[in-house]
């Protein structure tokens, strides 16, 4: 089981790095655009690329944020329960979350397919959006792996 945890953690870290690179990229892009605007030479489409970068930052950050339990949750009530009941609660919420991310991920793929069919592109640079939809979909599925890891950790008594 440790091997599986390691693989998922490494995958999450790797995606985290891409998100960090995207953050650096949108910062540099915006600064360049602001600078070039001084000479009336704006980088056309900065607005769209930055939005797109935002999707990469958030999407690729999903698994690691979850791995580190970075989302907000309220656990004072479950912490008052006996351990076995608390573990039961945690496992159920992990399963519900998995169901949710499968739904979101699957429908992001459906959305991507629809975007390919309809030919929808961004309004200025005419870039297709579907890779973003697919990408976010993949991120949701990897998030499910992280949730499985959570369950493994709970079973091993290593979940906080």
């Amino acid at each position: 089981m440790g091997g599986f945890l390691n693989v998922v953690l490494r995958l999450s870290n790797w995606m985290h790095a891409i998100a960090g690179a995207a953050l650096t990229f949108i910062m540099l892009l915006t600064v360049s655009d602001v600078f070039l605007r001084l000479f009336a030479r704006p980088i056309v489409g900065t607005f769209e690329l930055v939005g797109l970068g935002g999707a990469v930052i958030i999407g690729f950050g999903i698994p690691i944020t979850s791995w580190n339990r970075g989302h907000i949750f309220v656990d004072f009530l479950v912490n008052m329960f006996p351990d076995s009941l608390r573990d039961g609660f945690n496992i159920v919420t992990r399963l519900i979350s998995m169901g949710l991310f499968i739904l979101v991920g699957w429908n992001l793929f459906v959305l991507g397919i629809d975007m390919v069919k309809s030919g929808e592109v961004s309004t200025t640079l005419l870039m297709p959006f579907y890779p973003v939809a697919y990408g976010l979909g993949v991120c949701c599925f990897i998030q499910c792996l992280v949730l499985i890891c959570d369950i493994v950790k709970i079973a091993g008594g290593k979940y906080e």
Partner: protein
Amino acid sequence: PGLSAAQQKTITLNYSNFFPAPHKNSQLAEAWCKEIEKRTDGKVKITYFPGGTLTPAAQTYENVTKGIADIGFSVFGYTRGRFPMISIMDNPLGYKSGVQATKLINEFYKKFKPKELDDVHVLYLHAHGPGILHTKKAVNKLEDLKGMKIRAQGTVVPIVQALGGAPVGTTMPETYDALRTGVVDGAMSPQEALEGWKWGEIVKFTTQNFGSAYTATMFVVMNKNKWNSLPPDIQKIFNEVSAEYADKQGKLWDEIDKLGYDWSATKGHKVIALSKEEDAKWAAAVKPIYEKYAAEVQAKGLPGNEALKFCLDFLKK
């Protein structure tokens, strides 16, 4: 059981519009709902959601096809690439009024019946008044615009470039502040936006470059399955009311443009009319944009050149 026949037959529909409730376009859409309810003797009940609260503007069309809203009002240009034929009209073909643009799009739809709209039922289409230039410093001739930073998104970007300006992307709510601080020196829009988005507080000049004016085409469409489930007599009423409202909407665009002129005038705003020769220079500068666009549509196997000619002929009338 216990329900009367009339109650059992009540058809309830959701209508989503991105214009906020107080905007005149939203009020007209709401009046359309009321008119439908009235003429169907209450057999149809429409719940109206303004301000993009049910579906954001850019999602409205797609969300109508999926049944998130049954009826939707939005802008074709917000989803680029999806409506290659209709979007020919979003080019700077030289518009003079909202009535003219709205008439054109409905005729255009009747003639070409673009396949891209097959996944919905079209109730009516319309398009705003001439999209022209508003600036903080006077632009009297094409050369004045050189190097000016003009707020632009989507189809307006190439127009600004062709006219010699530098297009800068900002969100619509942020544009007021961008104009105020000088991040941009101007923006292109119908006159209406000067009051609607309050830009008239900041920009001091409008250049009436009608010969190179663009428009934004808009739709009021219905989910296809919902439409097919309506009894024929109800469908007839929908079509009649919609045809009337297409006219009303065209007139409304001109009316709010006029309000935009009057309102900005009270803020000390000046309107610059271009001479015929000067206007022709602007028109010539943007011509390659729509010719290239039509050719691209043609390359997709659609009658792009014919459609462009149809529009240009109509606008010459």
